[in-house]
């Protein structure tokens, strides 16, 4: 994909996020921050896994999109295979996130 942003592969991982939060919240223990981040992500995953929505003002919303049943193909044999309909998680960035990401893109 030619338009994927690539600026020296900058990335923040979950453990880096935990480190940053732990430094800023120095009245909490590292363990508490680590468990909090895991709890937040698990609650978000569980909400989506049970068909719910997530709405974070200024950040965005997560919901499920339905993918209707379709005919797929076995890539090895070329044989058609019926695929069932399914739900996939979808994220829609909120206005503040959209604006901030775009305004810093020079």
């Amino acid at each position, binding site marked *: 994909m030619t*338009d994927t942003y690539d600026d020296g592969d900058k990335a923040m991982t979950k453990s880096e*996020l935990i480190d940053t939060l732990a430094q800023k919240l120095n009245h909490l223990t590292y363990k508490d921050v680590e468990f909090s981040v895991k709890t937040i992500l698990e*609650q978000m995953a569980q909400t989506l896994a049970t068909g719910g929505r997530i709405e974070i003002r200024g950040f965005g919303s997560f919901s499920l999109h339905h993918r209707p049943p379709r005919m797929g193909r076995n890539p090895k044999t070329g044989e058609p295979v019926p695929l069932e309909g399914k739900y996939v998680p979808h994220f829609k960035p909120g206005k503040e996130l959209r604006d901030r990401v*775009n305004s810093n893109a020079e």
Partner: protein
Amino acid sequence: MALTKAEMAEKLFEELGLNKREAKELVELFFDEVRAALSGGSQVKLSGFGNFNLRNKKQRPGRNPKTGEEIPISPRRVVTFHPGQKLKARVEAYAGSQQ
């Protein structure tokens, strides 16, 4: 009812015994930091959940839907979310229970 920051803070209060102010502060900061990383040009990878990526979109032709007037859509950077295998599998399982 959608999950919001208030319910997330409530959960941290119940499960970790953080006080309500601390729990609220942590949840706020969690999303602030993810947003700051993306704003600063970083991808965000949350294993077990998914990745937030950045894509640069070229200028493309657009139209004012009201007037039909042609106006170019300016080049922009956008955030995309790609759920991880684990989250995809959990959500797909929900489809089964719906039919």
